[in-house]
């Protein structure tokens, strides 16, 4: 039969924790920071930021292309009166941007992943 009672077991445990408070704190801090990093990376992935992040490794060419066309567009002011001049100004700006958007590039066309393109429909 052991001489050490449950109470003295508790006492030893408490004493051990107290004796290693600093070490315990370091472990706890590391665990909390790992958890927070995990949450941050999960948000980075699930929010869609990762998919738009061209600074990822392997996207150097895409990054270079993106920098080329990085001009500042002021846009149309939300303040002021509406008259013929302001409507003409908007018309010019809108037509310019709409022409860029409506340019006939085959963005995200299904053909890129088709069996034919990947050579899976023939030997």
């Amino acid at each position: 039969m052991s001489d050490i009672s449950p109470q003295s077991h508790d006492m030893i445990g408490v004493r051990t924790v107290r004796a290693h408070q600093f070490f315990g704190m370091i472990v706890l801090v590391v665990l909390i920071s790992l958890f927070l990093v995990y949450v941050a990376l999960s948000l980075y992935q699930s929010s869609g930021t990762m998919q738009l992040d061209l600074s990822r490794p392997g996207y150097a060419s895409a990054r270079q292309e993106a920098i080329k066309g990085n001009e500042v567009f002021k846009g149309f002011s939300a303040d002021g009166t509406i008259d013929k001049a302001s409507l003409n100004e908007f018309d010019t700006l809108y037509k310019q941007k709409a022409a860029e958007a409506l340019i006939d590039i085959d963005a995200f066309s299904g053909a890129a992943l088709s069996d034919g393109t990947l050579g899976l429909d023939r030997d």
Partner: protein
Amino acid sequence: MIVRVFVGLALIVGALFLLPEPQVNAAVTVTPEVIERVKARCVENQAALNRLHQTDAFLRNDRGNLYRTIGDKLMVPLNRRLASNQLDGGALLTITSDYNREYNRFYQAYIDYDNALSKVLETDCSREPVAFYNALLDARQKRQTLSESNGKIKEHIRQYGVAFTDFKTGFEKEYE
């Protein structure tokens, strides 16, 4: 007490991220011929898909920036200016609202597509040709959704241009 609440909240948030994502696997029977072709063209298809992944990332950034510019720097300011001048821009407002809603769909559709294509790229086509082909089918479907959403955004841009021209014509007739 505050620490307990914080730890509790952190555990709940963490558990949410640990929930498994719903698996959407197209149950398609892959023929032995297709399996052989997948294996035979594995290396070149992986390279082609990698290039496509990069091109798509650039295209998504480019188109996304352009679409946001049109919405935030042209449509919304004009709608505000019309409202502050007590002019009726109801048609323009409706199109802007539809446009923003479609942009959100486009945003989500790209995330889904990119995840699907990443899954294709992660699958070893020489060892797991069936899984590769199924992942490819899934990515193809997601790309189709993305393409449709992109088309709808372009249609809203066209509609806004037409509605603005109508407004401008009416304004000039009425005030000048």
